[in-house]
């Protein structure tokens, strides 16, 4: 009996494996997977715009409707089929799902990932499974610092840029700051962000002191009453935060009536996503970043690509695109360019290796900025960064930013082969600001 | 006379209620002692103290000359004092045969021996022998949870006997058994116990049973022993007549108080 049951189970397995073993279709189409948070607290502020941005750009690519020079159809002519999958559920689950994507669904490329946790966990697996993977948003510098990567590309600057630029902005705009503190989530993203900011402040504003009560609440904690009290009582005039997802919005809601934003200067390195969503509830005078030149901070950048992006997005989704929409769109665009370039070089549909070869060191004009795949052997992008101050635009009845300052990538990113911490600690040698 | 089991100055109180007061009793090997008394007289409390379920407030219980107060039921079982229950304590989801097999397995389970296979011919033979001796072989493969009362009782007693105890305490072996069956049951039980030469103390309400099977009667009233004598003498004692038999006739159908009665015979 037991034997029979086992044999039955094996039968199912074998049958299943035979069904799955049908060979992949020839290359008139490219299958990609686009992971982003579709559930959980990060879905609304990040996952949905990210997905939308990718979807919109992919549809435009398939229709050949991107503005020139990107108006050729598909990835190297092949239609792109995208599967949007959920990034929530923990890193280990992402690793398991990634294996499924590659081994079971046999996708050609994976474009996405928002959380630094996902990317750090996936990096070794990507290399093991040898599949082209373009990280779209996640910011941890560790991805390329932990070892050479052949199959991973990241099409935007990493978190060091956000926090070094933040320190520059503070120095430029508020040189009188004497002490500063921070509230960041207790995981790689928050810890790294704070570390880079603190180190950069030591270099750029050596006179300013760091508070000894820096807060690290758990991600998705939701309630920050005590933390807001502690920050309010702290002497520091400046608060640094890399909060994102629902935490960011909850924090703003709880801190605004308590006067935190009138009493202190508060930097939100990823605050851009909240601007359109909170609308008038977004307090004025926040120092706002969007992890680069995206979303509200480049609302006025008048390039053809940017205008197309904003208009198309607004028409389709009824809201202006925020950072993650741009960043996912940018990752898809980069992949298309790499495919097209490889096809041109190979004179036919390119192999994975050819795509990777042409991806390395790619330089292109993206929707809102220029991207140079210049670091980590051509795998890590250099993009500029930008900060501004929030200001409600009463005339247009929409959120806006003032005092916008751009910082070139060479000013805020470490040169190739140097880790972020080393670079900042040594006083950011070679920075071109 | 060297006593096998002896209680000296045993007291037990639950808050304000005294369930045992200055109990002195001495039982010689191979005696068969009937314990009688009305409900709440302290009979089951006495059994519970002897088997380690309850700890006396004061006093000593000597078994083969050693004080066993403070030992757990398990340790006392291992020493050779076993018991049956007013509500039969059996493994409801196992067959009658398996009940005995488990009991036999536990009896030999010291250290690694607990990992010996249970389904072995030698254990099976012993189990079958027990089944035959207690007259329940017909129910061998029936699930114990579905047994008629009398068979449950027999199984309960058979399991108590697996460890080959020197002293067996039976808590109302005939309760819940119809009057035409009870002599049959007692004949089986007492016959089997005699073969093993076990010292028996049993709680009984039915004076007919008491008169027929015991060599000595101990009567309880309000936690005290009011009479300790051979059956004929005891049953004729005026105090026994007034406080035990008289009251008991009225109350026989009522449930008897006591801790074990509340313990479920199966997880419920």
């Amino acid at each position, binding site marked *: 009996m037991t034997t029979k049951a086992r044999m039955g189970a094996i039968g199912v397995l074998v049958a299943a494996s035979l069904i799955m073993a049908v060979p992949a279709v020839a290359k008139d189409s490219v299958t990609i997977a686009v992971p982003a948070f579709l559930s959980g607290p990060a879905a609304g502020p990040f996952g949905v715009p990210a997905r939308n941005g990718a979807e919109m750009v992919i549809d435009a690519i398939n229709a050949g409707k991107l503005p020139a020079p990107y108006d050729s159809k598909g990835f190297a002519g092949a239609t792109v089929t995208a599967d949007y999958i959920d990034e929530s559920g923990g890193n280990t689950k992402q690793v*398991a799902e990634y294996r499924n994507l590659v081994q079971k669904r046999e996708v050609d490329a994976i474009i996405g990932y928002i959380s630094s946790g996902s990317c750090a966990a996936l990096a070794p697996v990507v290399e093991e499974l040898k599949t082209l993977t373009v990280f779209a948003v996640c910011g941890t510098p560790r991805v390329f610092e932990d070892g050479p990567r052949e199959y991973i590309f990241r099409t935007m600057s990493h978190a060091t840029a956000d926090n070094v630029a933040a320190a520059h902005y503070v120095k430029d705009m508020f040189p009188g700051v004497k002490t500063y503190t921070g509230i960041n989530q207790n995981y790689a993203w928050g810890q790294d962000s704070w570390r880079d900011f603190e180190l950069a402040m030591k270099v750029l504003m050596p006179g300013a002191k760091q508070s000894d009560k820096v807060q690290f609440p758990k991600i998705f904690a939701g309630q920050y009453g005590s933390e807001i009290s502690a920050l309010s009582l702290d002497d520091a005039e400046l608060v640094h935060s890399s909060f994102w997802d629902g935490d960011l919005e909850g924090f703003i809601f709880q801190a605004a009536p308590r006067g935190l934003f009138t009493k202190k200067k508060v930097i939100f390195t990823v605050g851009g996503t909240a601007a359109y969503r909170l609308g008038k509830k977004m307090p004025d005078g926040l120092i706002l970043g969007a992890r680069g030149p995206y979303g509200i901070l480049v609302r006025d950048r008048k390039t053809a690509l940017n205008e197309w992006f904003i208009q198309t997005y607004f028409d389709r989704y009824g809201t202006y695109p925020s950072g993650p929409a741009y960043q996912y769109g940018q990752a898809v665009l980069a992949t298309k360019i790499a495919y097209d370039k490889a096809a041109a070089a190979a004179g036919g549909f390119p192999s994975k290796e050819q795509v990777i070869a042409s991806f390395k060191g790619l330089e292109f004009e993206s929707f809102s900025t220029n991207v140079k795949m210049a670091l980590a052997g051509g795998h890590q992008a250099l993009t500029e960064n930008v900060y501004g101050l929030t200001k409600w635009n009463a005339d247009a009845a929409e959120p806006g930013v003032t005092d916008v300052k751009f910082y070139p990538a060479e000013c805020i990113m470490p040169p190739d082969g140097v880790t972020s911490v080393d670079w900042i600690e040594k006083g950011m040698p070679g920075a071109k600001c | 006379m060297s006593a096998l089991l002896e209680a000296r100055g045993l007291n037990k109180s639950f808050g304000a209620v005294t369930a045992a007061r200055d109990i002195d009793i001495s039982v010689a090997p191979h005696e068969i002692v009937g314990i009688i008394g009305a409900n709440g007289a302290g009979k089951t409390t006495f059994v519970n103290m002897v088997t380690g379920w309850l700890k006396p407030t004061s006093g000593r219980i000597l078994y083969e000359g050693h004080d066993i107060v403070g030992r757990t039921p398990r340790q006392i079982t291992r020493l050779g004092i076993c018991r049956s229950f007013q509500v039969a304590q059996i493994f409801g989801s196992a067959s009658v045969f398996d009940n005995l097999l488990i009991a036999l397995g536990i009896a030999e389970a010291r250290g690694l021996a607990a990992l010996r296979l249970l389904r072995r011919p030698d254990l099976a033979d012993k189990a079958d022998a027990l089944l035959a001796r207690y007259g329940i072989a017909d129910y061998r493969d029936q699930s114990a949870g579905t047994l008629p009362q009398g068979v449950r009782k027999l199984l309960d007693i058979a399991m108590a006997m697996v460890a080959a105890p020197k002293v067996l305490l039976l808590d109302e072996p005939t309760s819940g058994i119809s009057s035409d069956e009870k002599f049959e049951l007692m004949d089986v039980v007492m016959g089997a116990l005699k073969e093993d030469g076990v010292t028996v103390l049993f709680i009984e309400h039915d004076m007919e049973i008491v008169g027929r099977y015991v060599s000595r009667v101990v009567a309880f009233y309000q936690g005290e022993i009011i009479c300790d004598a051979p059956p004929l003498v005891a049953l004729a004692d005026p105090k026994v007549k007034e406080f035990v038999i008289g009251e008991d006739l009225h109350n026989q159908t009522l449930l008897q108080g006591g801790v074990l009665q509340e313990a479920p*015979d199966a997880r419920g």
Partner: protein
Amino acid sequence: METTRDWTIPGVTVGFAAVAVLGLLFLPDWLMNLTVIAFARALAVVGLMVLWRTGLVSFGHALYFGLGAYTVALLGKDDGISEVLITLPAATLVAATVGLFLGFIVRRYREIFFAMLSLAFSMVLYGILVKTEALGSTDGFNVRTPTFLGFAPEDAGTTLRAIFLVLCALCWTVAVLVHRYLQSTLGRLTTAIRDNEIRVEYLGYSVAQAIHGKYVMSAALAGLGGGILAIALGQVDPDSMVNWTVSGELVFVTILSGPGSVAAPFIGSMIYELIRTYAFEWLPHAWQLIVGVTLLSIIFFLPGGVWSLLARLRRREVE
């Protein structure tokens, strides 16, 4: 109790041998991966099944699962030990040791109190891991690629196959040993304890000790399962390894499998993993709903788990 011959040991022997051989020959990587994950979880479920037979359900075995996983991961951290011959026994041992200590507390409790106390203990570990920056906090960290008796596979496919084979062998060993255990007196003191603790005590065996032993055994098995999962996935983090939802998943698979046989957890776990994978693929927004509905259906319509279904089929065949 039927006295027919017990086919379990030949059954699992042939079964695992067949899975191993056919797996190597036919299984695509993803399905082999899925099998590895399912079997790793099944090892923990075998322990939970023994507890369940005893009438105890632990909602905190993610504690041991996580301990095993983190032990393996930590040993390999910073170019440490990657040899499965060391890491897996270590995972088992660490989990068993912690189980031994906590066992002194939990063995006093039954039913819902046992379940909740176990859960509480697992949350303490969760809290520690989430807080510990050196262990990557909520991110966790990568696990080294394993070596097998010094053999270090070159590529992912070989590693997977090696893990698969080691796991099949381990599962077979565990199934046989646990089955043998269940045939012993101590093994029979599972349902017996569930039926009647008083009788067990009055037969002269300590219920607390018997439960303690099973608890340690289940902890060890969960540790082993967690260790293998860490190796197979190459990543550990608190949410996927130690959170209460992981414990819930383990209990779910236990119920799904049913207590009928040591082979049941392996089949049940496989089914669970397939349901989860396909639900996630077809309905990424509603996969939890599907899992939840499955669980409710099992509770209501198949209280004996999948195994009872197989057993029923067999009975029909015989008739």
